[in-house]
């Protein structure tokens, strides 16, 4: 049922005693998420929203058998907190923070890969499997409804916009995943799509992309072999070009990365590309109608 998280997921919140950590712990609990423990170094022994706080992940995992972590720590501390979660065997590990130094992002991704763990983020709103009442992160819980549409996106509020529109159109979601807005993130579109491909619950996928990078082009490559319908929305048709990374950026992208490159790649792979946000839900409905 859905991917990555479900009703069995026991969530550890790192940075639980901070303002964001405490607020969203409350929100996650209200959604029904099984938040079993929190960690803030030096704050062990307290409680936040009824959740016990520990000094180390090790101690929290020992006591409560947490299986996944969501991190509400500032960007500068994300590397250490993520390593601690990964070393304790937690997966997925969801790094909400923005402004994580890129080199730290590389380190976290390398460590997660070595551990075989799913890393979500950094710079993500998190993920949610509505039917499992499992929300790890910051999206507003009211926008979700259980259903058959998988959603994978880079940016937050745009995802909420589209998920809310799906819900309004009676198109519930299997799992909604924000892969994160940084240049280096843990799971890519392709890796999330691979999981949706194997998930029986998911019957269609919405991909919310934007200009820059080549993740959408890579997703298009993968989509060619996928037998579930995908609807994409791409932001940035009218946006200015992002900052150039010298010649190296051009050599890596080799003409990819632009709105047109992404649109063409996706359409060539049979993906229906919406050019306005409100076109997504009708296209999904149509696709499911066809698929069903």
């Amino acid at each position: 049922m859905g991917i990555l998280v479900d009703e069995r997921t026991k969530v550890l919140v790192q940075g639980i005693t901070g303002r964001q950590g405490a607020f969203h712990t409350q929100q996650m609990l209200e959604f029904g998420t099984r938040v079993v423990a929190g960690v803030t170094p030096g704050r062990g022994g307290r409680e936040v929203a009824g959740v016990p706080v520990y000094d180390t992940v090790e101690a929290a995992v020992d006591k409560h058998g947490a299986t996944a972590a969501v991190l509400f720590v500032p960007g500068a501390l994300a590397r250490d907190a993520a390593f601690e979660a990964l070393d304790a065997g937690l997966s997925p590990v969801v790094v909400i923070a923005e402004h994580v130094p890129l080199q730290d992002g590389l380190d976290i991704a390398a460590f997660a890969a070595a551990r075989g763990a799913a890393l979500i983020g950094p710079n993500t709103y998190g993920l949610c499997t509505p039917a499992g009442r499992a929300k790890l992160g910051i999206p507003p819980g009211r926008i979700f409804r259980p259903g058959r549409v998988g959603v994978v996106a880079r940016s937050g509020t745009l995802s909420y916009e589209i998920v809310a529109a799906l819900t309004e159109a009676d198109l519930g979601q299997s799992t909604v995943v924000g892969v994160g807005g940084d240049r280096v993130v843990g799971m890519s579109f392709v890796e999330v799509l691979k999981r949706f491909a194997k998930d029986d619950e998911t019957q269609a996928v919405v991909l919310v992309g934007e200009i820059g990078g080549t993740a959408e082009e890579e997703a298009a490559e993968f989509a060619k072999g996928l037998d579930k319908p995908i609807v994409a929305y791409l932001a940035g048709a009218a946006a200015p070009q992002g900052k150039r990374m010298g010649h190296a950026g051009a050599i890596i992208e080799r003409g990819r990365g632009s709105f047109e490159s992404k649109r063409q790649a996706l359409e060539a792979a049979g993906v229906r590309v919406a050019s306005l946000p409100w076109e997504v839900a009708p296209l999904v409905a149509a696709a499911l109608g066809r698929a069903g």
Partner: protein
Amino acid sequence: MKLFEYMAKDILRAAGVPVPDGRLCAGPEEAAAACRALGPVAVKAQVLVGGRGKAGGIRLAATPEEAAAAAAAILALDIHGERARHVYCEQRLDIERELYLAITIDPSSRRPLLIASAEGGIAIEEVAEKAIVRRAIDLPWGLLPYQARQVAGRLGLPGDLATSFADIACRLYRVFRGRDAELVECNPLAVAAGRLVAADARCNVDDDALYRQEDLPRTDEATVLERRVRALGLAFVQLGGDIAVMANGAGITMATIDVLQRCGGRAMNFLDAGGGAAAGPTAAALEALLSTNPRAVLVNIFGGITRCDEVAAAILDVRARGALTVPLVVRLVGTNEARGTEMLRAAGIAAFTSMREAAERVVALAREPLG
């Protein structure tokens, strides 16, 4: 943060990478003095924008007089919208051959990536794919000398150049990691007098890591207005249209701009007010936007963390101060939507719930003849 060439070269020099001898000069007299000290020089505009060579920002000078003239000419240039405040006078190289070498981040593999070519120079982006060697670098071990030698071997470099190339690559990698760089690039990495030397250098540093790079010099490409809005902690870029845009989130801001374009309008800026911005900064950002004399303003809020009542309060605050001199269109949904909408309605401002209707409305308002 991009560094000026001379800053990048200072860093490379400190890391043991061979770079030509050079001096930073604020004007023609200093350039003449540099030439007297260094002999024939290349006089190079210190700008953050690319393509300065084609724009006339690099000139050769054999004598102090020529150096002074070159500096004066370059400092008077507009180089793709940027004006150099300094030139860098650098000992002229007798370049036999141009290579390319860079270390950057490969988002696809989530690893540092070494990119090299035996055919470097300004046409590097047109070099055939097979002439380019890419090597993803495993963390945490990093680039190991033998891996750099393998790359040198694939480039077909002869013995001594290969050894030197590998050594330089490892030093660049240390700069890349140690300086929190997003990119370290030598183009060309020149062969001069039989030795490798970084004839040009570029180093872009990760803004998010500047807090731990305290000893690095700072540069800033932003306009005055951009700086003013960014000082509020908000992401802001000036564009060319006439409708000021404020939304909460990078993706939805981009989407708002796209939607405006589809409706026949044109955004004046990209302003991501972020998630959870309080009334104070939101009002300040809105005032900054109004100071740019837009034809109309569109505020597009999908409140997740952001509370609609805070946004409404910010708008009312700006209007109370008399700053709201052009038509304003608000789209407001999400957390505390009812309360925010009610606050605006009480003040005579209609809030839309549909992004589409809000966009169509603001485009129509922007098209109306001025006051």
